[in-house]
């Protein structure tokens, strides 16, 4: 393709050359290149502008927000919202802590469960691999719906309103499992496992000492999928959590958007001063929490992007 030309900037010169060669050159013209670039610049602005807007709002003076509304170019900036969030926001830090805990524990367990499930299925010599593949795959096609699922976690295994309800339902994921199985299959030749067996290593030892280290990239991909899933989850708390001590950051944001007073009432429990309540930078603080919740994602974005694309490419290979 056009990659053979490498990265060249002066396409004008190149284009003239193509024209003289009866337009054989396998490259788009300068004008179309310009318009395509324009399209993508516009599209990128569309993607980034709303995020930028909440960042600006979180940095705008509260009075200005109340008088002039949300704007990309406010007259008066203020870091009061962040000041408030960092000093008085016990509720916020608690929720942040819940999110971090759930994400860490959830990702760790989830990666273990998924890899444990995927590994036997990747083994040619494992007789029931098709049965167990289908056992997982079927859950992607058919489900019982919300109500029976809700009943299971409230009545059969009552872990409603505990930290576990935000972890357990996402531990196993058929789609990630299949990506991991393909990864094992393509990276680990059966002969390595056989030779480990001859050397006297048990299955678990082989798995932890030989297989997993060879599949670091695959494990990292799955781990990032899980991390993102747990960090961004608001669905499980929405359905199962009523105890406000267990709100995670996403669910706290959900509550705050619905009633702006939520933040104030939450901190009033601890500070007990109604004066604080009156001049809280609630509008700004609300957006500040949203910005803080995106923080880790932006921070880890280069990794996320790299491994997501890798995961997508593996996932595209039908195993």
């Amino acid at each position, binding site marked *: *393709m056009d*990659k*053979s030309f490498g990265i060249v*900037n002066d*396409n004008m010169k190149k284009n003239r050359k193509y024209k003289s060669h*009866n*337009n054989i050159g396998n*490259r*788009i013209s300068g004008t179309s*290149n310009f318009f395509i670039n324009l399209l*993508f610049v516009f599209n*990128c602005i569309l*993607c*980034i502008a*709303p995020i930028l*807007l909440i960042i600006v709002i979180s940095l705008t003076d509260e009075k200005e927000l109340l008088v*002039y*509304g*949300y*704007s990309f170019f406010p007259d008066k900036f203020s870091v009061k919202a962040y000041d408030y969030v960092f000093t008085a926001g016990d509720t916020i830090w608690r929720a942040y802590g819940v999110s971090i805990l759930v994400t860490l524990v959830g990702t760790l367990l989830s990666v273990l469960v998924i890899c*444990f*499930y995927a590994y*036997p299925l990747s083994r*040619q*010599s494992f*007789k029931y691999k098709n049965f167990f593949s289908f*056992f997982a*795959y079927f859950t992607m*096609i*058919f*489900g*019982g*719906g*919300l*109500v*029976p699922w809700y*009943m*299971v976690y409230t*009545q*059969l295994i009552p872990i409603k309103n505990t930290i576990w309800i935000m972890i*357990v*339902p996402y*531990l196993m994921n058929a789609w990630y499992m299949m990506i991991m199985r393909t990864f094992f299959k393509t990276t680990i030749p059966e002969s390595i496992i*056989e030779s480990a*067996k001859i050397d006297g290593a048990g*299955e*678990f030892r082989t798995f932890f000492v030989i297989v997993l280290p060879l599949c670091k990239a695959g494990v990292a991909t799955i781990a990032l999928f899980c991390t993102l899933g747990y960090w*961004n989850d*608001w669905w499980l708390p929405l*359905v199962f959590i009523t105890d406000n001590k267990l709100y995670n950051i996403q*669910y706290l*944001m*959900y509550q705050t*958007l*619905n009633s702006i007073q939520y933040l104030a009432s939450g901190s009033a429990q601890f500070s007990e001063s109604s004066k604080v309540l009156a001049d809280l930078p609630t509008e700004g603080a609300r957006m500040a929490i949203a910005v803080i*919740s*995106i923080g880790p*994602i932006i921070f880890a974005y280069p990794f996320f992007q790299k491994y997501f694309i890798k995961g*997508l490419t593996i996932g*595209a290979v039908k195993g």
Partner: protein
Amino acid sequence: MSKESNITVIKPNVNKGFLYEIKKNWALFVMLVPGVLILIINNYIPMFGIVISFKRYRFHGNFISSIIKSEWIGFKNFEFFFKTPYAFTITRNTILYNLMFIILGLIIPVAFAILLNEITNKRSAKVYQSLMFLPYFLSWIVVSYLAYSLFSIESGFINRGLLSAFGIEPVRWYFEPKYWPFILTFFQLWKYTGYNTVVYLAAISGLDTEYYEAAEIDGASKLQQIRFITIPLLRSVMVIMTLVAVGKIFNADFGLFYNVPRNSGQLYSVTDVIDTYVYRALRNTNNISMAAAAGTYQAIVGCITVFTSNFIVKKIDRDKALF
């Protein structure tokens, strides 16, 4: 020893059954246990829980005895559900929105991927890709914040910044259903276009360059190359992506339809989908059996769609079928 274990597997051994297999590969079975347990709890028990939708569910001590002791009333719950005006509205909304998302989610990302691949400066192409991929990583709650900052009636950017600048009266966005099909479609595309573009871009970069070299020698223009090489070669990825989406046509993205319109009651006629309806029926009206019936209806119709679309694809091209 290893050779032998291999041979025994290859040989069809009918006599040596499941127990023999467990004894030989016990470690592999142990590895499967956690995953199997989670799948049973999280997926298979709820599947059997579908019986709730055929019963008048009452709580009797625990889950299992409640299911057994609740009165069997056949299709009464379904009748009740389909007699409500919601049944039609939510089904229509779910299907129409998903159709829209499937069509636009195919055309725009494929076009973007092809164009992005043609950009001569690869570094700026990388930057575009990164910025467009970013929304995928934000939760629907964050997206609902973004929507709020734009559409808030008192202080939103559109009312206060844009409309007032042109002297237009502010719009009460969260109470006016007519705008929401566009707003919801916009945010769906906003969140997923980058992701889908990356998928197709990965597929394009995996294509064999020889086709293009040959076409170039034959004097094919760029447009001809796209039309006769790129798009036909991408077809299998497009078919699989679309098939997966069509299979899920009865499953709406709860986060989009619940959080972005902020569950505003005035908007239900255009924002309510099966998933949000079931959730609210379970939560607010506490009519568990009817909520279960709506959920069962969704699960069964959804399952039929998956099998049908898979069957069609199998007819066209065996290799591209999902199962």
